[in-house]
């Protein structure tokens, strides 16, 4: 049996282990954050916003904030919690154990955060009541799926690279790179998940047609490539994050001098 055959074992075990009332409550609260905010704004405004505004607001609240937050809480400590709890050695002693644990936990993170993101996006869109609701639902849900897969891989990698300060490193990376750097129109922002998701939003919602002439810096922020290109790049980024995390787990020594009492 190889790594792939062991992933279901990790997935089912971690799912059962994670299924606790406090965690469910926390995830539900996260899922309801954007809809609650949208409901407040909708009541205050009194009328539905234009589709473009609704799409951007839902994108920011559900795809970016909610998904990123949920995935951050799930994926970043995936490996570091095992190291801190000293349970890693039991997993590392199994054939293909580290890689199976990594991929199993990745799928657990995606499967837990995906419903959170989807609930958040769907409820927000329904509350906003924009003109092109079916299209908005399809696009935002698609972005939620991509966001969960990509950010899960990214935060998993951060947790493997900096296991001792995983959460701090995760927050720092999210703020510096995914929030700040992603909005700087430079060569480096194309390496962020945020940039790809943002580009996909404008392509799939056809914002480029409507906005390109009005905004001269449009291409600097949203690129000129097709949606398929961005989709491909996002997939490659996700695979690179996972591959890097897998290689690090395989070749890095996670036993420190302090743990060996010498």
């Amino acid at each position, binding site marked *: 049996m190889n790594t792939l055959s062991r992933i279901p074992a990790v997935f089912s075990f971690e799912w059962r*282990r994670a299924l606790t009332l406090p965690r469910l409550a926390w995830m539900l609260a996260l899922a309801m954050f954007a809809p609650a905010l949208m409901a407040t704004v909708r009541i205050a405004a009194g009328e539905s916003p234009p589709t473009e505004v609704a799409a951007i607001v839902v994108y920011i609240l559900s795809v970016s904030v909610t998904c990123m937050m949920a995935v951050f809480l799930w994926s970043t400590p995936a490996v570091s919690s095992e190291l801190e709890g*000293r*349970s890693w050695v039991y997993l590392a002693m199994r054939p293909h154990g580290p890689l199976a644990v990594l991929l199993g936990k990745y799928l657990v993170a995606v499967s837990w955060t995906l419903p959170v993101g989807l609930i958040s996006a769907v409820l927000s869109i329904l509350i906003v009541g924009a003109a092109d609701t079916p299209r908005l639902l399809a696009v935002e849900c698609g972005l939620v799926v991509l966001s969960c897969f990509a950010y899960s891989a990214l935060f998993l990698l951060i947790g493997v690279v900096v296991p001792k300060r995983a959460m701090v490193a995760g927050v720092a990376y999210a703020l510096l790179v995914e929030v700040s750097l992603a909005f700087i129109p430079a060569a480096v922002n194309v390496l962020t998940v945020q940039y790809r998701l943002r580009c996909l939003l404008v392509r799939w919602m056809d914002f480029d047609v409507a906005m390109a002439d009005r905004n001269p810096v449009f291409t600097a922020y949203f690129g000129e490539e097709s949606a398929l290109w961005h989709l491909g790049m996002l997939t490659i980024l996700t695979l690179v994050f996972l591959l890097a995390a897998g290689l690090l787990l395989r070749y890095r020594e996670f036993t420190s*001098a302090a743990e*060996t009492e*010498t």
Partner: protein
Amino acid sequence: MDPLSTRQCANVAVAFRKESPLRNSLLLAADRRIPIVSHLKAFNMLLDLKNVTRLYGTVIGVNDLTLDLPPGAHGLLGPNGAGKTTLLNLITGQLSPTLGSVRVLGESPRLSSRLRQRVGYLPGSEGMYPNVSAIEWVTYLTRLQGYHAKKAGELARNALDRVGIAEHMHRNISTYSRGMRQRARLAQAIAHEPEFLILDEPFSGLDPIARHAMTVFLQDWIAHGHSLLLASHVLHEIESLTRSFLLLCGGRLLASGSADDIHDLLADIPTEVMLRSQDAKRLAAELIGEGLVESARIIEDGLLKVTTSSSLDLSHYLNRVSGEGRHLIHELRTADDSLQDVFNSLMKIHRGTA
């Protein structure tokens, strides 16, 4: 390099039609042009460490350690901080040596998935999930060994039964006593039926009853022909299981072999002998005068403590003077023969205080 040896390796490997560790190992030896005899010798060894050094920055964990151990039960003994856990981490492949080579059952342990099937490990730290039951945990880890869910569950139940906590296996681990947790940890190490079990301080924190149960289990394990490496800083724990031990201190291997081998090593080391005689002062003077003792000290009235490097000569002399009636020896007591004394002596030599 003898070209025939390489060919032999390849030929023998081909004779193994099915995939096996030995076949693969021989093919590897042929590929690397290693002579077959030395290769087979290494393959048969439980542990084969050559000049192994492990550094943590500038701190030495294990220092130039060379070791050949045949299959069987062995104790790894040393005080806290001696490098036992570092050595176990090297053997289990959690760490790679900074210098030298480590082979376990003929294979390099660092990234060998095949070796992980053959080895069971009980680490020194607990590291269990509190909110799962023992059966869930052991089944999970057994599934990670590559077994299907049903078979893994069967093996896990069997292992938990063997360590004596089958009736509590559905309870959350957080409700277990220290002894029960230790047994559950042992169960995960043996569930996949390894041929080599590595235990790091398995008796740590156990009450006397749990210690006895653990000892009985390990004695049974050894009796069934399995190999065992047990690390401890408490000598009698090892002594009750094996007479083959390795003494580690400051990252160095001070001694290895059976207790008798170590006694031979210590033949020239001064031994303390207690003598009770009516005239201890006169006896002390005579012994010093005859050159039979290096030092003599009156402990209390009639009780003399001497240090000698020639125990046999001292014994003959005392026999003679006692027989001639020159001295009445009421009591003659040497350091007892337990490993603790051997251990203490070796530690003194290592520290330069012997």
